[in-house]
Structures are given as structure tokens and as C-alpha cells.
């Protein structure tokens, strides 16, 4: 049982309350080091696997962006062929371990599962995928080999799922790859952006190690495009360039007072939390307001609650159906004690002496399909406000001083079907291109583009 340790506080006092160490040590362990979805043991995995009908032309496969042969890997689990099951997953999706944890399966494979149509209880495909990959990773085997050296070198910008998926496939195809990342560690959002309870332990780094272990991939961290590297140089020095730097910028809320102490982008809060050596030392507000409706907003809200925040209110300007977070995520947040308030938009961040004390919202409504404020406002008291109204591509590094300009539209790099950009030899994929911003889609982008690069280079 989690025990909250709050100092007695004068209810009339207005000063901000941001503090570390609100919980017992065990509560941090429970909140951040145990899986949100309990993994299957052998017996449960076999029972769950037995529920799969082994469909012909299975709808789940069609629903998977990486087209994993789901009935096949589940059948292999049921016959105790774990290696075969894991390779059915990892061959089309080298991030099969991460995707098993973070995929919104209830909107992808599990939504398509015929068992869902039959009895509103799909086969637990995500958990089975985790079972197969976890068991396989325990063996320590490196199952992939490299083709004969092609003599080609490819630069990949961004060591997240898109970049590493591309790099791994290119390495398999015999190419040499250098992967650059602005951060200190590879993994991208798996390492910095996803809630800790979805990828517990150091799974993200272990997965990166597994991917890099194929060989032929050089990782250069702490190298940012536009600062340490330029696109022109990469195009000159390499046979091809794959841009997969995601969306490193955060969108501003656009309400007054955003510079108050206590207001910060949710992604920064999550990244800090993911990298914190000691969560008990990480300060968190007593009252939190999260602004936004996507998974980042949900992840920030739940994790701040689990860090010991007393009241966490997530405010979204539209209704539950329009939220980017899935129904499942919304329910999970509510179960965790997060209050979700719909139909209100931030007007200003309220503060005293430069320190946040609350967020003022205006009720919203739809008028002729358009969202508008009603004029009525309310204030939610807050010590911390975490903003999660979207991330954006940082465009300058790929544009500034370049000989040729990369075609960017609507804040995303424009690509063709197989990752080709407007520049010869430059490809892009993942969150920096138009799409659904899912990990699994980024992995697919990287895989498809690697094949395209290989085709193009071999002419």
C-alpha cells in the first residue's frame, strides 16, 4: 500500500509546494519498476495462445503496421517453439520487444482480432509478443547475420525506433551505418519519452544493445544536426542519409504566463524522470495540471501521481473521443486517480512573483463544428503545469545554410512511398514525417526505407 507523506500545510498558504521524496521508498519501486501490464508466465501464455484461432488471412496481421505474422508466432508459442515465435516477430519488427510494451494494441492488432468481434475479448497479442521476445532475449542469442559488405556507408540521424530499425536492416543488408543522436543515449522516445512503467528496468537500453550487436553500426551520441553536423556534410560524406530525428520541439500552449516557474513541457518532465538515478530525489508538485489529450499528457499525469502528487488534473479542450490517448489509456489514468476534465482550454498561467499558483481555463464548446470558448472561466490551483499540446519538427537544422532545401510541409518532412525526400540520397521516416507517430510505424518506416536505400544504392 502506498502511503503518502505530506507535511501539515496551512490551507491558506499560497506558496508553491514542489518537493521531492513524498513517498516511501517502496512506493517508487511499485510505481515505476513494476510493469503496468503484468507479463504472462508460461502457463498463462499457453492458455492465451490456445485462444488464437490461427485465422486465415488474419485481420490482426493486416492491422499491424509491421505486418507481423501474429497467428504464426502465437502457434509457435503454443508448441514451445519460442525461438521461432520470436523470429516471426523480430524479422519484420526489430523493436518487437518495445512494441509489445508500448503499442496501442487495442487500436491495432487486438482491435482487429476476431475474438473481439466474437466475445469482446481479443487474444492478448501484445502480452504474447512480450512473452516470446522476453524469453528469447533471455537466451542472449543474436539471430541476425550480415550480408557480404556492400562498401556503402549510410548516415542515420536519430537513434530512436525509426533510425535504429533502418540502421539494423541496412547492417543486415551489408552496409556500414553511422547513427547520430543529439542525446547522450540511443533509444529515442523508448529511452526518454515513454512512461517508465511501460518499459521497466533498462529494457530500452538492452534492446538497443541487442540491435547494435549485429555489427556494422557505429553509434555517435551527443551529435546534433545543425550544431555538430550538417545535412550537406552528411550528403557529401555518405552514400545516403536517413533522417529520423523525430519531433524534438514542443508546441507552446500560447497562453500568458508560460514562462512562470513551475510550467514546463511534459516531455521534459518525463525525460528527466526516465533518467533520474533516484526518483525519491525528483521534485514534484503537490497539485499538478496537465494540459493536452495525447499519450504524453496521460504518461505525465500518471507518473506525476505516482511520484506522489496529491491532485492531478488533466485538462483537454475537446471531448474524450477526440483525445489522442486511447480509451484504454484514459481509463488507466482515471484508475490511477488522475482527474480528466474535458471541454476547457488554457487561458493563462496564474502566478505570484514569477511562480505558478494555478491555471485559468475557459470552457469550450462546438459551434458549427468549430471549437470556441464559452466565456466562462475557472482556475485550477497548481504547483506544476505540464504542457503536452504537441511536438514539432525542429526545422532549422535541416534548412539553414543548405545548398538545396528539403521539402517540408505542415511541420513534417515530405516523403514518397519508400521514404524518399525531395533531396537525392536523403530519406526520412518516423515522427519527423507525416503519420500516426506510433513506435511501430516508425519501425516500419525505418525498415521500408532501408530496403529502398539498398535498392537505390545497388542500382
Amino acid at each position, binding site marked *: 500500500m502506498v502511503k503518502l507523506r505530506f507535511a501539515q500545510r496551512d490551507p491558506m498558504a499560497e506558496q508553491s509546494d514542489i518537493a521531492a521524496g513524498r513517498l516511501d521508498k517502496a512506493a517508487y519501486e511499485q510505481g515505476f519498476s513494476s510493469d503496468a501490464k503484468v507479463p504472462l508466465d508460461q502457463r498463462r501464455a*499457453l*492458455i492465451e495462445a*490456445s485462444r488464437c*484461432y*490461427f*485465422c*486465415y*488471412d*488474419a*485481420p490482426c496481421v493486416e492491422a499491424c503496421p509491421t505486418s507481423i505474422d501474429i497467428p504464426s508466432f502465437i502457434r509457435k508459442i*503454443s508448441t514451445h517453439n519460442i525461438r521461432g515465435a520470436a523470429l516471426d516477430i523480430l524479422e519484420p519488427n526489430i523493436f518487437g520487444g518495445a512494441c509489445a510494451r508500448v503499442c496501442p494494441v487495442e487500436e491495432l492488432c487486438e482491435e482487429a482480432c*476476431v*475474438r473481439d*468481434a*466474437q466475445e469482446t475479448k481479443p487474444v492478448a497479442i501484445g502480452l504474447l509478443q512480450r512473452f516470446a521476445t522476453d524469453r528469447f532475449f533471455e537466451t542472449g542469442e543474436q539471430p541476425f547475420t550480415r550480408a557480404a559488405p556492400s562498401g556503402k556507408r549510410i548516415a542515420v540521424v536519430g537513434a530512436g525506433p525509426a533510425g535504429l530499425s533502418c540502421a539494423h536492416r541496412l547492417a543486415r543488408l551489408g552496409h556500414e551505418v553511422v547513427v547520430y543522436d543529439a542525446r547522450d543515449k540511443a533509444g529515442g522516445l523508448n529511452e526518454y519519452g515513454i512512461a517508465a512503467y511501460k518499459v521497466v528496468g533498462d529494457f530500452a537500453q538492452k534492446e538497443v544493445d541487442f540491435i547494435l550487436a549485429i555489427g556494422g553500426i557505429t553509434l555517435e551520441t551527443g551529435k546534433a544536426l545543425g550544431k555538430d553536423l550538417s545535412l550537406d556534410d552528411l550528403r557529401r560524406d555518405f552514400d545516403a542519409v536517413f533522417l529520423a530525428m523525430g519531433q524534438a520541439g514542443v508546441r507552446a500552449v500560447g497562453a500568458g504566463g508560460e514562462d512562470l516557474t513551475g510550467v514546463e513541457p511534459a516531455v521534459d518532465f518525463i525525460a528527466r524522470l526516465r533518467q533520474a538515478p533516484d526518483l525519491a530525489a525528483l521534485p514534484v508538485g503537490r497539485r499538478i495540471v496537465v494540459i493536452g489529450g495525447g499519450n504524453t499528457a496521460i504518461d505525465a499525469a500518471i507518473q506525476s501521481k505516482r511520484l506522489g502528487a496529491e491532485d492531478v488534473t488533466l485538462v483537454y479542450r475537446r471531448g474524450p473521443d477526440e483525445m489522442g490517448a486511447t480509451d484504454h489509456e484514459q481509463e488507466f489514468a482515471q484508475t490511477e486517480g488522475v482527474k480528466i476534465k474535458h471541454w476547457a482550454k488554457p487561458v493563462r498561467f496564474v502566478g505570484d512573483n514569477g511562480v505558478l499558483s494555478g491555471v485559468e481555463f475557459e470552457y469550450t464548446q462546438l459551434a458549427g463544428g468549430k471549437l470556441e470558448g464559452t466565456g466562462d472561466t475557472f482556475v485550477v490551483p497548481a504547483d506544476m503545469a505540464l504542457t503536452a499540446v504537441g511536438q514539432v519538427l525542429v526545422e532549422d537544422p535541416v534548412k539553414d545554410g543548405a545548398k538545396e532545401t528539403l521539402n517540408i510541409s505542415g511541420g513534417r518532412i515530405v516523403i514518397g512511398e519508400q521514404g524518399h525526400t525531395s533531396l537525392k540520397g536523403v530519406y526520412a521516416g518516423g515522427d519527423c514525417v507525416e503519420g500516426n507517430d506510433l513506435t511501430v510505424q516508425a519501425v516500419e518506416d525505418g525498415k521500408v526505407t532501408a530496403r529502398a536505400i539498398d535498392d537505390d544504392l545497388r542500382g
Partner: protein
Amino acid sequence: MADLRTNFAGIKSPNPFWLASGPPTDKAYNVERAFEAGWGGVVWKTVGEQVVNVSSRYGANAYNGTRVAGFTNIELISDRPVEVNLEEIRAVKKRWPDRAVVVSLMVPCEETAWKNILPAVEDTGCDGIELNFGCPHGMSERGMGAAVGQVPEYVTMVTEWAKAYSDMPVIVKLTPNVNDVLYPARAAVDGKTDAVSLINTVASVIGVDLDTMSPLPEVNGKGSHGGYCGPAVKPIALRMIGDIAREFGSGLPISGIGGIATWRDAAEHIAMGSGTVQVCTAAMHQGFKIVEDMADGLSNWMDSKGYRTIDDFRGQAIENYVRWENLDMNYEIVARIDQDACIKCGLCHIACEDTAHQAITARSNGERRYEVVDKECVGCNLCMLVCPVENCITMERVDNGKPYVSWIDDPRNPANQQAAE
């Protein structure tokens, strides 16, 4: 309320549910628990020559998550002294006079052995004896069990001894490990048996341990063939019971054994001619309490059908159990798929496409749509059987206006074509 009482070859029991000779009926303790739970009778685990059992003794098949879909054992007859068994039988029968207590016997194939043991058994007050001519393992190598049951002359001979040296009703338990069960059944009738029971277990090796390379169950790295039973063997039992019932009608009482776990299984056995049914594996899997639903479920079903007694429906399926050549060659059905119930698993399509008659479409206009191509459908049932949705695929009668014709009279029968020429 249906009347479940049975009178089987003179042996009365309050319901047709008996525990078969086996581990659940090895001693008074188990049998008393069974009677407390509501079982109508028991066949006491085979009494006879002193044996020693090994460990381990059992093996089981799990199928698709279902445990004990099939079961095997390499256990021999009771390893307790004959006198101890007989004393317990006497005491149990005294305490439970309304229940059937039948004693299974197996002694060497010598007249003196039977002559010696039968009076002692009869003296216990038990209701009858069952001659274990079926055990396929361990005992058969010693010239007992299936070694007797597989030789019709021995069956007749031992049955005659049993009838000669006791006045008890005699049930001959038949082995399925023969080409045609009618031969030993006829031999038992020739020996003046009062009834038969079947099937005993099927000679089998339930599996191989792929690490130790030992057949299962394993006894210190080695395995031996055992007797297969449980849900998997019900079809084998129904067929053999049906064959005997078809030949002897109600003149030969049959105690049905093989894969009975529920009242439905029991009702099928009875419909094929069984007068009582015997259960072992299901009790070993889930305990004696299963008899509650067996009795309750059978009674409710009988009420719903208007059957007052077991005899009202016993053997009702026999007249419909015909030889293949008497089936209606002009009967025609085709599959129908309820598109609203279909969940798009595609199993009907791939089963038909890969292994049958290419009579079910996969997609139309780019959408998954599984539809029957009537002119290709032969009415085989495969799609209906593999469909995981109840009543989604049904078989519909095609009114072709043709009358019944057997293969014997069918003009397509080459024998008839030759005759016409």
C-alpha cells in the same frame, strides 16, 4: 422427475452411474466417498493374484489447453491382498445395500483358480462379478486380461467356469484391442454370460519424452505400453457398443465404458445400447462430485424429452446405426454461412481450399467475405466443424426431389451397372 433407477442383469442401482474398476474403487475409503457423493454403483478394482505396481503409473494428453483429453495407465490390478479387499467389500455392501457393488476379477486361466476364488467373492454379498478380460498391459503378458479377451475360446471357457462356480450375475469386460469386438462378445454369450461391459483401455504409448527419449509414463528412463482412456476414446467405445447392441438387441445387457465425463456422454452411451455406464478418468480428473450433474443433467434432459425411465431411450439410436451401404445416396446438403454471425477468421475457407473442395470464397470486392459456392459444395460438414462460432455455418437440405436409394440399389454402383449390361 425422471426415474434413473436401473436393473442391469439383475443388479439394481439407484442410477446408471457406476465407477469403473480402477484406482477410484481400489479400497473401501474411496468407494464410501463415491457412494456419499451419489454414485449408483462401483466395480471394485480387480482382485486377483498378488501384484506389485511401479511408479510412475499414469500419463495424459493435454490438447489445446485442455488437460487430460486422453489418459493412460500402466497400473496393474489391486496390489492389496485378496482377503483385505474381500473383507472391505463385505463391509461396504453391508453399509450401502441400495448401491451396486460388482467385483472385478482376474486370476490365471486355470479352472482351479476360478473355482477357488469365486465362492469367497460370492460370500461377501456383492451384487455380481466382472471378468477382467480387457487389461492390455502387464497382466496380458502373464496370460491374463486382454490375453484371454483376445481369444474367443478362452472367453467362453472362463465365462463358463464363472457361471459354474457361482450364482452371481456375470459381466464379461471386453477389450477393444481386437479386430472385431463381435467375436469375443459372441464367445461371452456362448459361455452364458449375463452381460458384457466395454471398452477396456486401448493399448497405447501416450507420448515420448524428447529429452530422455523415454516413452511415457516413464519409470526410471524406460516406458511400457499402457491402456488409453478418457474423453479421447469415447468414439471407439460408442462404435463397439453399437456393434454389439445391433447384433444382440436387448438380449445382452451392456455396461458402457469409455470417455464418459458428463451426462451427455452417458446419454449417448445409453442411446447406443448401454444399460449402465462406468466412469473412471473423469472422476480421477475432477473428483467424485461430477456425479451430481451427471444425475441431475440426465434427469432434466429426460424430463425435457418425456423419457420417464432409462429404458425409455436406451438403444434408441441403434435402429439408425446402419451399415454404410444403407445410407441414402440421394441425400444432399450444402453449407450455409450466416454473414452476420461470421467473425472473418477464414478457417472455413482455408479448410475447404487446402483440404476439401474449393467451395468457399475468401474475398469479394477486396473485403473478407466467406461464401459457399453451391455447385462445388459436397456437403461434407468440414467448414461447419472448424467454424468457431456456434450456428454460424449450418448444413441445409437441398430438395432434389430424389427418393431414398441405398448404395446397393444405386445405379451408380458398378455392380448394378454390370448387371444392367
